[in-house]
């Protein structure tokens, strides 16, 4: 099928490129748009490495076609940093707690965690597990990820006071 022009907002900037309807949002971001933060892990919606926010909600970018995201606001891991380009409190907490190893699932974890903290500034362990339950990490055994998200929540609450 013919490529069609698709315009969406990625990390705050309007971006346009052409793609066939069969191109997933993940491949569209990573290919024509060159936004490579979201990662391809399984392409069947299980691993969560491709998680991005669409209109503020985490979704699997491998299970959505780019054409469906036309006109929508998409946030990838690159968009989590502050306007000064410095890592966000969540990203800093992942560094402090070493909530990662190889870095491959990390963008999806951060997206899932960001969505959680946006809704719930004081998540308990069960909330965190639920929020990242759809993201498989093969390196960490999740402990330091959970610690990182707890730390981020604490730091954000302190900063808000």
């Amino acid at each position, binding site marked *: *099928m013919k490529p069609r022009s698709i315009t969406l907002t990625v990390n705050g900037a309007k971006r346009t490129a052409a793609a*066939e*309807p*069969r191109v*997933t949002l993940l*491949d569209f971001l990573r290919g024509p748009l060159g936004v490579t933060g979201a990662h391809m892990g399984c*392409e*069947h*919606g299980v691993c*969560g490495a491709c*998680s991005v926010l669409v209109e503020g*909600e*985490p*979704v*699997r970018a*491998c*299970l*959505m*076609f780019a*054409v*469906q995201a036309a006109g929508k606001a998409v946030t990838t891991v690159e968009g989590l940093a502050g306007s000064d380009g410095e890592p966000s409190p969540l990203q800093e907490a992942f560094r402090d707690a070493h909530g990662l190893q190889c870095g491959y699932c990390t963008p999806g974890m951060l997206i*899932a965690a960001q*969505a959680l903290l946006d809704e719930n500034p004081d998540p308990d362990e069960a909330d965190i597990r*639920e*929020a990242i*339950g*759809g993201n498989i990490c093969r390196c960490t055994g999740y402990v330091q990820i959970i610690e990182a998200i707890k730390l981020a929540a604490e730091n954000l609450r302190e900063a808000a006071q």
Partner: protein
Amino acid sequence: MKPAPFDYFAAASADDAVRLLAEHGDEALILAGGQSLVPMMNMRLARPSVLIDINDCDEMKFMAADGDGFAIGAGTRQKDILKSAETCTAVPLLLKALAFVGHVQTRNRGTLGGSIAHGDPSAEMPLVAVTLDAAISLRTSNGERTIAASEFYSGPMSTERAPDECLMAVSFPLSTGAGTGFHEVSERHGDFAIVSAAAEINLDAGGKCASAAIGIGGAHPHPVKALKAEAILVGEAPSDALIEAAAEAATDGIEAMDDVHATGAYRMRVARVLAARAISDALAEAGL
């Protein structure tokens, strides 16, 4: 793992969707949340040449009381159902089942109608629909019909929906005063069930079962309403023996499948275990 080529139409309305379906017939599929369809397309196990996207059809996203029932639009997302206090009160079994459905990311896209229409034998939403015998409305460009959920499924991912029909809404009977129970087992939380059981029971003033709806998922090629188990319960005063008898009867007529996760024999045994748990929960909640 890239989908075969297809043409794409975003339906602006339900009418638009059924018109497109009429136009493209057998080759078209409705794209709702896409959480089951798109993986199959990525693997080229599904290869529609036309996709009709109903995600922008706001009229298909609703939850509202509807006479004796509570109707949910096919395009309603699972996350919105979870957040709807009204739905949780009207159809509490749905809420319990949704706790087992996928993950945050899939519930943000996944829809009720998509899950019902896809008809995975292990999926939770079809089991709830069959258990409660919800009314499923289907529309073509020529009109609309309603089919009972217990009549809707014919096999794994196989339903009575005609190729030109679009699933519009599912109407669940109101669960006034009922107790509910939902149990399933999967290796990992959030996966499709290996086997599952649902129950909704009303007790009468004398403490006897006034009505009972029992269903089993994951065992048979499609979700099954356990009529024999229901009959055993209705009119009787609950007891451990009664629960056991009903659970034992819950697999009546089921021909359980073997697969990579479990044998059919496992599914039969565990279906009875989970049925007993679901019935016990429902009875406890109903005020026993």
